[in-house]
Each structure stands twice: as structure tokens, then as C-alpha cells.
């Protein structure tokens, strides 16, 4: 029986098991990466319809590109603001829900609903709700005397990014809440009970016990959400297309624009490598600091 099986199946060596994965990664991760590095030293010449070697030109351009600077500022603003709001809101909602045992299943189901909507569709949904003429959010803001409907949220330079962030925050706060809730469920009960007996206030219990004990959970949430926020594209594409002007150009969107509209394949590749380097460095530091293990 055993002899009739192909040799790789009875092997003790990990390679046969990993072979499909390695092949896939070589073709679809390592090769694109190498191709990107190659492209970053070339540029598509529209007149010649071919790639020409340009040396370090694309890389040097990174230092003088004001639009890139603009995109990086927007990216960092977007990531930091969304992450902070989502963590704080997610944590608070999780604290509120943690007490209720029975409703947990229902809430979890409702929360996961937001996760299965394609971000592009969420973007369209919020674009409609923020529409100055018939949008619900624009209308509510006017009723609350916060913002007149004469100011279109997604077409005003100071507000457009916030308008996009609302969609992101709405869609991904439940994700953070779910993670925190799971984390809180896993905490030991004893320290909390003794703290209550000692007469500690709710605030003290939260800051002294819950948050420190959840530090690993928080780190994982920051890591996964941070990576995705830094790569944001869908919301920008459907809601503002980077506008007004270049006010909502994230790094991903700028890269895509360079590639698809300006046909600057080489520079686009250079930008995407820059994004990869930033994410990789930041994520590695976080993983090391928080000792996240897989």
C-alpha cells in the first residue's frame, strides 16, 4: 500500500509539502518584486512604446516629488486618524458589550455584516449619504448646525479626506471591536474581582488591568489594520478619485495614477517599492517590539 504511493507523499522532508506554496510565491511574489526593481530603473517611453533604461532617475525623483510628499502626509494622516478612532471606538464598544452574555452572538453577527461588504460598495454607500443634495449624513450635519449643505463634503479640500475616513471607520471599527471582545473574554477573572473588592473605580480597572492585559491583542489589531490602512485604495477610488485636486491622493492611489493614467510604469514601480519598504520596516519594528508570534 505504502509502496504504491508517490514518493513525495511518504517523504519526511518538508519540501514536498511546501513546494506548491514556494512555486506560487516565486511566481507571484518574488517575480513581481524583482520585476518592480527592474522597472524602477527603467521608464516607459511613449514615443518609442518601449522601456528605456534611466538608471537611478526614478529613485532620485522620490526626493524632489512634492506630490509624493503630499501623498505621504495624507497616507500618514489617514492611517493614524483612522487607527486611533477605530481603536478607541472599538475598545469602548467592546467594553460596553463585554457585560452582556446573551446578546453577544447577535451582536457578533451584526458586526460581521460590515466586514463582508466590499469596501468599494461601502465607499459608494457613503458617497451617496454624504451627497449635499440628498445625502443623509449631509442632511443630519445641517440639522445639527455643524455643516451647511452648501458645502459638499467630498468636494471640499479640508473635508474630503474626513469624508472618506468616515466610511473606513464605519466599516472597520466592528473588526476592532470583535478582536477586543474576544481578547476580553479570554482574560482571567480573578484580578478583576479582587480589584472590585478593593474598591477600585471602573476607570482604574480599565486603565490598570484591561488595557495592559490586552496589550498583545492591541498590537495585533494595530499591525493588521495599520498595514491595510496604509494601502488604502478602494475608498479613495470610488469616493473622490483623489480629488478635489490632489487632496485625497494616498500613496496607493498616486502609484496607480502614475501607472494607469500617466503611463509612468517605472516611476509607479518605484513608488510601490517605497510603500513596501515603509510598511515592511514599520511592521517589523512593531512585531519585534510587541513580540507577536505566529
Amino acid at each position, binding site marked *: 500500500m505504502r509502496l504504491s504511493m508517490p514518493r513525495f507523499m511518504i517523504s519526511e522532508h518538508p519540501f514536498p509539502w511546501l513546494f506548491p506554496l514556494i512555486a506560487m510565491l516565486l511566481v507571484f511574489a518574488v517575480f513581481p518584486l524583482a*520585476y518592480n526593481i527592474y522597472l524602477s530603473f527603467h521608464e516607459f517611453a511613449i514615443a518609442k512604446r518601449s522601456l528605456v533604461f534611466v538608471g537611478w532617475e526614478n529613485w532620485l525623483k522620490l526626493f524632489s516629488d512634492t506630490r509624493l510628499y503630499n501623498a505621504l502626509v495624507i497616507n500618514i494622516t489617514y492611517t493614524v486618524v483612522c487607527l486611533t478612532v477605530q481603536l478607541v471606538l472599538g475598545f469602548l464598544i467592546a467594553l460596553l458589550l463585554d457585560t452582556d452574555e446573551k446578546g453577544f452572538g447577535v451582536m457578533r453577527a451584526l458586526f460581521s455584516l460590515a466586514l463582508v461588504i466590499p*469596501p468599494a460598495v461601502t465607499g459608494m454607500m457613503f458617497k451617496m449619504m454624504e451627497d449635499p443634495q440628498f445625502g443623509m449624513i449631509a442632511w443630519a450635519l445641517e440639522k445639527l448646525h455643524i455643516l451647511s449643505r452648501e458645502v459638499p463634503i467630498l468636494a471640499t479640500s479640508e473635508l474630503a479626506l474626513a469624508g472618506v475616513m468616515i466610511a473606513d471607520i464605519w466599516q472597520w471599527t466592528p473588526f476592532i471591536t470583535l478582536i477586543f471582545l474576544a481578547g476580553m473574554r479570554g482574560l482571567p477573572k480573578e484580578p478583576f474581582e479582587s480589584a472590585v473588592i478593593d474598591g477600585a473605580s471602573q476607570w482604574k480597572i480599565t486603565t490598570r488591568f484591561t488595557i495592559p492585559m490586552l496589550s498583545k491583542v492591541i498590537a495585533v*489589531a494595530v499591525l493588521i489594520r495599520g498595514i491595510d490602512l496604509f*494601502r488604502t485604495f478602494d475608498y479613495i477610488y*470610488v469616493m473622490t478619485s483623489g480629488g478635489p485636486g490632489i487632496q485625497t491622493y494616498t500613496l496607493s492611489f498616486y502609484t496607480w495614477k502614475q501607472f494607469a493614467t500617466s503611463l509612468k510604469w517605472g516611476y509607479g514601480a518605484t513608488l510601490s517599492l517605497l510603500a513596501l519598504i515603509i510598511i515592511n520596516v514599520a511592521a517589523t519594528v512593531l512585531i519585534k517590539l510587541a513580540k507577536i508570534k*505566529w
Partner: protein
Amino acid sequence: MTMVLPIYFWITVSIKRDKDVFVLPPKLFRFEPTADYFKAVLLDISPVEQSIESRGALGFSGGGITYMVPRLVDSIIIAVGSTILVVTIATLAAFALSRIHFRAQHHFVYLILSTRMLPPVAVAIPLFLTYKTVGLYDTHLGVILAHTVMNIPLAVLLLKSFFDDVPLEIDEAAIIDGATYWEIFRRIILPTMRTGIAATAVLCFIFSWTEFLFVLMLTATGLKTVPVATSAFVTSTGTQWGSLAALGVAALIPAFIFILLVQKNLVRGLTMGSLKQ
């Protein structure tokens, strides 16, 4: 409340006539429901064939294509195809990473994790250029392969965390009894880890189902998945919100049913197995 309101509102848009959509304050309950958008999107009953009366009320402006079943089929082919592929590859790899110890294992795991950090656009540019030359551009297979790679880190790391739950002593006992790794895989790991594999599959399905950028960049006219197809409702003469909402709702239902099935392992899945519930 804030959570549910936008979704509820979106569902109402898919069954409201334009005169009830474009009014403020928003009509959340008192409106006359209509299934016309769903008919247009799912049954290809174009607004022209519907009664003139209702056409006026619906205000199908802008024309354009509203029949979206082919797009749903594209989405299903791609999501199912890439899910099967990624789960197969990842199950094998996760088994090796969980059971067989080898040199540089940690580095290998980190390498897999770092593919998660690749911005999609960084992969999509080279793939676009390569696909053009090898003829994978604008094909289902091309997108399936791209989505497979996108989901590999999630699937491998999550499955590894599930497989790690099976105590190593069982392996050792089996090896003493003369079992090979393949037998351990088939007789012990696969049967006990059915739910874990199912949870992984569902998450991969959903991430493929909702993915936007690869489909946008790697396809032209041949196929489109639902997220990209929604942009077809944005026409030069205005956006067909009703049809757009109807498609959004239609696409939401299967994904939601799937995710309800894996509720228990959801958090673990979303954190790629680094947090256990």
C-alpha cells in the same frame, strides 16, 4: 444603531423609487416598495420592458448596462476558484510548518507574513505587464491566481495556528505505529481540522469576493467582479443608485451567510491565527 443604519438605508434604496430616494429628510419607513431594480439587475428585465408608468417613476437615467448576473457569475468563479487553490496549497504548507521542523522555519513564516505587506499595486503592475504577454490578461484564471497569492498569508498562518492545536504527542504515537506524515495528515489532521479549514475557506472566499484593485487592473471587458461592476452604474448622466444598491445587496447575502457559518473562528481568522478565541 449607527452600525446598522447605513446598511438598512442601503437596502431601502434598492427597493425605493427615485422619488423616495432623493428626498430629505430620508424616508426610512414610509415608502412604496418596488422590486424593479432587482428585476433589472438579476432578471434582465430592462426598464424599457417594464411598464412606462413605472419607468417614469423609477427614472432610469443614463442607460448603461444594468443586468448583472454575468458579473455575479464572474465573482463566484473567481472567488470559488481562488479559494480552492489557496486552501489546497495552504493546507499542505501549513501541515509542514506545523508538524515538520526544519532549519530557518521562522524566517520562512516571516517571509509568508511579509507577502501580506506587499501593497496590491506593487504586485498588480508587474502582473499586468506579464499577463499581457502571456495572455492571462482579462481572464478568470489570471484573477484567480492573483487572489490566491493575496490570500496565501492569511490561509497559511491561520491553518498553521489550527494545526498547532493538535498535540504533537499524537504524531509521535502515530509515527511509532509506523505512520508516515502523509498518513498523519490524512487520518489525523484533516478530519479533526475540518472546521478550521472551512473557516479559512470562508475568509478567503470573502476577501476574494470583496477585492477591488486586482480586478480593476487585470481585467478589461471580458469579466468584472461585483465591486468593480458597481462602477458601471456611475454613468455620465448620473449614478443609478437603485440598481447599484440592488447589486450591493444581492452580493452581500451569500457572503453574509458564509460568515455566519464560521462565527466561532471569525476573530482568529481575521487576525491570521495570532489570536485564539
